[in-house]
């Protein structure tokens, strides 16, 4: 099982993701440079957090033209696991691999804090190790994480159950007070219709060891490690 972590100029969460994969999970790890034109046999590709290409023009707007992104798109089309975290989620939306967009937080503040997430799908390769409607604690760190989609797209997402994570309180109640950025329907993460491309604003790689204050993020990495194997088998 090999994870590939994409590195754009301006990416900074690549080493954190790499640490979890390599040191905590003991899985094979390859960094994929934005100019690379092949995925080096990776079974799961992670687009990590940061400010790819300085977030010039819009978050993720330039990153989507990177040579590696063509491979990532093909890989996703073939059913490969693609996982965008924070800036990676923004890149996936700009690339059209996920619907909607991430806009400026309603508060205009950069929010760096712990959030509670209600896990609404556990049948996905990314969340199989989570309990049904489990509440997990995962930190966020972003200025532009307010999820937006037009009403038709939003209702399609809801009808198809493509909302994977929703900001909630510690009891799992999806309430406005638990929404850190003004996201529509408290959306923190979505998946494509096929279920192999996940985008989420919170950072599971920052809560995968007890020393960091929580280990809920590790459930997602463990799920992906197992999920990618199933994809290979099928």
């Amino acid at each position, binding site marked *: 099982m090999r994870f590939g972590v994409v590195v754009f100029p301006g990416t900074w969460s690549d080493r954190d993701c790499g640490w979890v994969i390599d040191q905590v999970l003991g899985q094979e790890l390859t960094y994929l440079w934005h100019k690379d034109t092949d995925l080096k046999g990776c079974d799961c590709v992670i687009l990590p957090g940061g400010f790819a290409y300085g977030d010039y023009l819009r978050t993720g707007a330039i990153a989507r033209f990177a040579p590696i992104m063509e491979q990532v798109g093909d890989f996703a089309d073939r059913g490969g696991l693609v996982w965008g975290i924070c800036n990676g989620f923004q890149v996936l939306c700009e690339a059209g691999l996920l619907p909607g967009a991430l*806009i400026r937080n309603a508060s*205009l503040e950069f929010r760096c804090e712990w959030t509670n997430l209600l896990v609404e799908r556990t049948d996905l390769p990314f969340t199989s190790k989570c309990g049904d409607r489990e509440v997990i604690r995962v930190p966020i760190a972003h200025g532009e994480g307010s999820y*937006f989609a037009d009403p038709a797209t939003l209702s399609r997402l809801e009808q198809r159950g493509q909302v994977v994570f929703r900001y909630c309180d510690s009891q799992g109640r999806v309430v406005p007070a638990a929404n850190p950025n003004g996201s529509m329907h408290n959306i923190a993460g979505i998946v494509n219709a096929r279920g192999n491309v996940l985008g989420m604003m919170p950072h599971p790689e920052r809560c995968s060891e007890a020393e960091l204050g929580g280990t809920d993020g590790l459930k997602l990495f463990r799920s992906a490690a197992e999920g990618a194997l199933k994809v290979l088998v099928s």
Partner: protein
Amino acid sequence: MIARVIITPKPVVNDPQGLTVKQGLASLGFREVTDVRVGKYIEVNIEGSSEHEARRRVEEMCRQLLANHVIEDFRFDIEQEHKRR
């Protein structure tokens, strides 16, 4: 030729920057302000081509990169460049 592109958040998109600027203007006494939207302004210099062709190309640029159709609207003017000294 120069294309002057203006990009604005779609009316349905929440624009916290615009709201904040509106509040700032109100606190300065500009009570007549009913709405503020904050967008982007981009100048694109273009070589050769007719104005008609330039217009078609800039439209494509907006669709493919300059604006995100999910959240933004765009409009632009094309001007013949002023003669350089």
